[in-house]
């Protein structure tokens, strides 16, 4: 099981890193989404894995539980990463609508635009 979780985190990270290095905004957003998954699972796993040991206190006395603290932290992290993704999406969308281009290489875009507009005028 540990190998499964660790490899999933690794693959998600690798995919996320590859995508955030792309040259358009949309793949970067996808990459960040993958990285969020990876980070959330990574943090969750820092409480070590456990099966059938939910952190819900049992009425029947002595029971063992999994570590609840990483779960609480990850829960808010999931919601916050949604907020972050939403803001990013909005910025990317705004940038695309303003510039009619979703490239993230600002220098190239800027030069092209300025030159193009100057030439036009």
């Amino acid at each position, binding site marked *: 099981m540990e190998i499964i979780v660790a490899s999933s*985190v690794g693959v998600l990270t690798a995919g996320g890193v590859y995508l955030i*290095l792309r*040259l358009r905004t*949309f793949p970067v957003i996808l990459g960040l989404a993958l990285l969020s998954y990876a980070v959330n699972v990574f943090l969750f*796993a820092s409480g*070590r*894995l456990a099966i059938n040991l939910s952190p819900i206190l049992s009425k029947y006395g002595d029971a063992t539980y999994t570590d609840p603290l990483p779960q609480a932290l990850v829960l808010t992290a999931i919601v916050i990463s949604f*907020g972050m993704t939403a803001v990013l999406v*909005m910025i990317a969308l705004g940038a695309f609508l303003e510039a009619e281009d979703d490239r993230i290489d600002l220098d190239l875009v800027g030069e092209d635009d300025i030159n193009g507009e100057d030439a036009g005028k």
Partner: protein
Amino acid sequence: MSQAGFFLILIAVLPFMGALLPGLMVRAGRTTSAVATATPTALALVMLIILSPRVLSGEVIQAELEWLPQLGLSASFFLDGLGLLFAGMILGVGLLITLYARFYLSSDDPMGQFYTYLLLFQGAMLGIVLSDNILLLLIFWELTSLSSFLLIGYWKHLPEGRQGARMALTVTGAGGLAMIGGMLILGNIVGSYNLTDILQAGDQIKASEWYLPALILILLGAFTKSAQFPFHFWLPHAMAAPTPVSAYLHSATMVKAGVFLMARMWPALAGTDAWFYIVASTGLVTMVLGAAIALFKDDLKALLAFSTVSHLGFLTMLLGFGTEAAAVAAVFHIINHLTFKAALFMTAGIVDHETHTRDIKRLGGLRHLMPVTFVIGTVAALSMAGIPLFNGFLSKEMMLEEASHTYWLGNPYIIPALATFGALLSVAYSLRFISHVFLGPVRDDYPHKPHDPQFGMWAAPGLLVVLVVIIGVAPFLAEGIVTAAADAVTGAHLHPHLKIWHGVTPALWMSIAAIVGGALLLSLHAPLDRIWNALRRPEAKDIFDALIARLVSATRWTTEITHNGAISRYLAIFTVASVWLGWVAYSGSGLSAPTRELLPVPAVIAVGWLLLIVATVSVVVMHHNRFRALVLIGIIGLSISAGFVYLSAPDLALTQISVETVTIMLLLLALHFMPQITPKESSLGLKIRDGFIALVAGGGVGAVAYAFLMRDVDTISGFHLANSYEGGGGTNVVNVILVDFRGYDTYGEIIVLGIAGLVIYALMNALLDGPAARRLKQVVYDYDRSRDRHPMMMVVVTRVLMPIAILVGVYIFLRGHNQPGGGFVAGLVIAIALLMQYMASGFAWTQERKRIEYHTMIGLGVVIAGLTGVGSWLAGAPFLTSSYTYIHLPPIEEFELATAMLFDLGVFLTVLGAVMLMLYSLSRIARFAGETVNVAPMDYDPGEQADDEEDK
């Protein structure tokens, strides 16, 4: 704390407390503003005078407020003789400058600002001289650099002012940085950051192998601040400041901070060869060089500036000698220099103010037109020249006396000769100040007809020259304060006798030579001036500018390489650096042996894993088709949710599943307005490079995860598990952690989420005001669209689902404290229920039926959560302490009521509001893009059809 200690802290704090007053009072008039400035200064001065008898009798007053004891940083102050001398100078001259500036500044100048800066500076200076903690001293040291920057650049419209301010800040700031390093080393050697401890540990410091680096770094700070060669060049450029600033900062206080520091550190650092050769030689060179340049300056203030550089060199050299008699001379000269130099600066300011020029070549003959100014300027300048019966003579004699028996590399003549030469130059430029400005024939080409200014303007310099004469004639009056300060510098008990006549000593002969030679030199000034101007001299400002330009181009080069505007480059650098750091950490100590067994893998989990891996790889391979990539992302999210279920994290699974739904909806909405395809434009090389980075990063993170998964860890969760029910009243430990143990974090997080929602709303509004709106209106949908946008079946189903979904949401919310669920999940579930209505019946139709604004919901949520936290104050408990009780109402089961539930309600409302606001914002764009607005709930309404038929 004793009353004296209380006074001491008040003295240090008063200028800061009063700093805003003048700015606020300036509307009531310029005089009121000046009075508001003078009040805190005067109060502090009175307190200082009350304390002074005890200090003069040898007592050291201390006061301490703990600040960051873990760092060895406390707000501790002490007042000894040296502190008393400087604090008195800072406050006394501060009062005089306040008065002078009231009349000097014109009505166009923002006077409130000026006085506010002045008080800030004064507070910072007082902090330096009163600090008993070197870290605190460093803070005040930097504050003087910053506040002097504001003061030098006060006339923002003058380019020289701005450049001078920048140069002063760069030089003194760089020195300050060096000094921080030196002070930290010093603190490490002694094991304490308390100045009183450090001063007692002089032998330990000098024996340490770190002595020399610490000494050099600290001296760099002192030399830059006190404008010692080769850092002297900033001071003349800082003269672009208004004259009151020059008189205050550049003669009396700030430039003396370096001298003060050397005097303060004297017991800890002085007395070694390194100290003597660095400090005394620097001082000597500065003294002679500054005096020589001063002689050939035509700008009155530049002349005085270089003369100040020269006199600061004089003081530095004396401190560098490292003898007790030299320390006495230095302390005495600090007082004398203050009196005559501040008076001279103010005189120069008066001349400038009245004649509208500071160019010596255009002045002369002013003694008839400005008799009062003439008397003041002459007395002060004669004192600067070191003429008997004025105070400058006394300390100069003591300096020459010390110089006359100091050897430099075994040579007995170098120091006396150069010191005499410096004194000679000093005589020459002082006499030039008198003769070329005031003496000579009256001219008729002054830019402005001069006359003596009003009393308020010459009162301050007048008072100072009275002091010049009093000390000059009766030096024993100053013996008390000089003794106290010199005792504090040397740490010994000295009994200096300040007197005019010492008998026929070598110093007397040197003095006579200097005066005669100086007068002769002045008579030759005109030819010398021509030679001087013909010489090619290195211009410090050009060197400085070239250096700065070099630095700027170097940083620009670095910036262009690393920050080229493409985020992919930053992210690549960041990723590689993180992986490298991880590698460094790993190669440092390696790993311990694994302590955990591998858990078994059931077949279904293996399938889920395969799904996740395949989906992830597919996203990477097929990300060019954006829609398909989104679907694959959804698969990944669901696999992870399933994984959470299996690995005992039901709350996470619930949250992940609902967040997943909302995220995909959001991305779909956004994708609607963006290109559907990512063009294939990365070169193969780029792909290989990025692929390599990605594989290394992924491998690294996977390895780290595997490494810690195989090892046990000490966790603090035992506490949470044990206290969740007893203290928090809930059995779902995750939820209790969220709303109780770490409720503060959650509170912050919902605020962040709310802000994210509002940011998106604001962005959308800004977007719809700009060119993007025009572009949106022209969107042409070239792909085949659904003919049935609001299908009847979907409308009906979502209507039926709505109450059920809301019920589920409420249920999840209510059970959250004890079973998986809670405010976060409930908020998301209900958001999805509402979103379904938007999807089924369209934006406009649903929006019309909305009763409560989403902004309000966010605000309400944060307020409820906050009030719940505050409520525990009423019960006398800390913020967000929860309490709970059990209620039994006959028909239903006994249930629990906890304040945590109220907090969770706040979380719920914020999450719901934020999510809805985000999606709402995106759908408003859709409306802008020419989507038709539907007023009916569905495209084809069978009910209406039936009505129509009945009508027929």
